[in-house]
């Protein structure tokens, strides 16, 4: 058990959009000592008043099972899906990256942004803000490349994820 390897999992949780629900989820992770590597939450269904939480966490298979079981037994939780285990899925993250520089460095940052298909969303004489979308790894790589070119600030959304194919997260609607 203890020798089992830890692995990163992306878990999607459909919850009632009500005050305190995020606190319940976060409290569960802190209270039981689980990791949160990334967490995103937003309302996704206004008619049914539902929000979706995407959590990236890591643990041994036994811990991941526990996390899912613990999430499932929270009263306002509708669905829990392990996107890592249950078939292929798409993961995306968005980052806003501020880079300050002049001359060659400024041009170089633009060139790299182009390779990463990053958009310039703010431009000043001595700075850019890039918007870059992709997997967390891609964002990491972009940010690393910007480091020597005058990286000032990074703001990331955290991972949002969805299963591939026609099936939705809800068992029944």
């Amino acid at each position: 058990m203890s020798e089992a390897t830890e692995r990163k999992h992306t878990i999607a949780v459909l919850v009632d959009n009500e005050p305190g629900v995020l606190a319940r989820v976060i409290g569960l992770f802190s209270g039981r000592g689980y990791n949160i590597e990334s967490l995103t939450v937003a309302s996704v269904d206004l008619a049914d008043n539902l929000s979706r939480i995407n959590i990236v966490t890591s643990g041994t298979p036994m811990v991941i099972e526990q996390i899912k079981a613990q999430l499932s037994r929270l009263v306002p939780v509708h669905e829990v899906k392990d996107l890592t285990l249950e078939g292929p899925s798409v993961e995306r993250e968005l980052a806003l990256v501020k880079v300050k520089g002049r001359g060659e460095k400024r041009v170089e940052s633009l060139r790299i942004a182009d390779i990463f298909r990053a958009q310039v969303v703010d431009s000043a004489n001595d700075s850019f803000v890039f918007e870059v979308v992709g997997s967390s790894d891609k964002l990491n790589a972009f940010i690393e490349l910007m480091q020597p070119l005058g990286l000032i600030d990074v703001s990331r959304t955290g991972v949002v994820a969805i299963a591939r194919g026609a099936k939705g997260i809800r068992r029944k609607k």
Partner: protein
Amino acid sequence: MASNRMNGARILLKALADQGVDVLFGYPGGAVLPIYDELFKQNDIRHILVRQEGGAVHAAEGYARSTGKVGVVLVTSGPGATNSVTGLTDAYMDSIPVICLTGQVPTHLIGNDAFQEADTMGITRPCTKHNYLVKDVNALAQIVQEAFYVAKNGRPGPVVIDLPKDVLMALAPYVQPPKTQHRSYRPQVKGDKALIREAVALMASAKRPVFYCGGGVINSGPTASRRLINLVRDTGFPITLTLMGLGAYPAADEQYLGMLGMHGTYEANLAMHGCDVMICVGARFDDRITGKISEFAPNAKKIHIDIDPSSINKNVEVDIGIVGDCASVLGELQKVWTETRKKPSKKDLAPWWEQIAIWRARDCLRYHQAGDVIKPQYAIERLYEATKKRKDVYITTEVGQHQMWAAQYFRFEKPNHWMTSGGLGTMGYGLPAAMGVQVAHPDALVIDIAGEASLLMNIQEMSTIAQYRLPVKAFILNNEYMGMVRQWQELLHGGRYSESYMESLPDFVKLAEAFGAVGLRAEKASDLDGVIQEMIKIDRPVLADIMVDKTENCFPMIPSGSAHNEMLLGPEDEAARPISEEGMVLV
């Protein structure tokens, strides 16, 4: 339309009455005054005025455990709510259905650090199954209904409803909410059929099987116990129960091995260690049960039946995990078992039972009562002997040595007659819990088997007990020590009895009299039976101060960090096996 309008407090009481609530354990305060005003005007719901809110929650727990119904608590905002936190945590750990109604400052003052404001939602979120803040009087009746549903369905637990004062005073019509399916919370009741068949196949192949059952069987209701008894007798397998499960299977039955775990019997723990198939029903592989987890039942295939999916594979990886209600799954297991042709016969199981007989012959609960000094074990055995013919005996306990001795020496034949704080280990649980049991069963004999240290933690409830003329008995095993602390200090900390001696104990006889109860004392073994008889006979609350051996230790014992087969059977064993450093770190 207009005539149907009433304030939130009245709606609350109506909604409670609709849920069948007939008693509240509570304590008034500013934020809940509208509720107390409405209570004054009605006769459907009785209110028991406790002396501290913590007592109210334990009383509700006792009420709930002894009836199978939901216990209801009413406290005010701020300190009323914070005082109830220990009881809520206790109910959460032991899966007891309790609803706690907390007052709250008016909605427009929430977050302003108003007088007697506390973030009750924030504070109780981790110690309840769920909690609700009612912001709109029109949602109140629906929330009450949902709270009861959540408290008693699935794995039961405590639910808080936080009630701002303005909501209690706002007017709305009372509409009984329609019974609809819950939006999201729908626990799985029926077990997976394929897994049940797999489980039966495994059971049928067993040579050294054991049933290991817990409080989940009791929570599931009397049907679960009946089905468990049938299945165990049908299979011919031995069975052991956890502290929380006592009474789920009759203690007098010869297939019963006694309680397992840290202070369980030799035969139960060794059967667990040596079994090849373990059938766990409604228990959760708690650390008090498993001992050293890496050496827990090393050769066993394990089946786990539990209504809470998060209990399965939490501490111990099992081979077959069946999510479902104990009663339902046991019924299905029985059906498939009956249909199964090839299963172990009496002869097949004979070697296993012979081994168990050898373990039993060690007579691990043996003790020596000689002379005047009362052995605590003897006191409990005499209490059991004096009460065993009655059908209406309910035992509660506090926490510590006396609790373990009660579990070892008092024998329970039926579920719902044993109330103890298992998971949280809350000293001060027993007296208020006994109070709640007595409220539910006015004519029963309700005894709190207590230690003198624990009893003092909620002694104020003697006043409540006196007020309502509840004939609760506290049977105090008084060794003038926090006995379990002293025992651990003896075994683990070189006999340095740091702060475990109870200096300046009150005179419990006089204390009883001060509360309008009866005080009795037994100082010698020859006093004991007389005191017990008198205690039972008196139709009033009694504190029976039983002066027991001050240095007696609770055995058998699996020292923390050790495995089931490393039990200490008595003082002779201690010296031979020093406790490891690793074990000392554990609780």
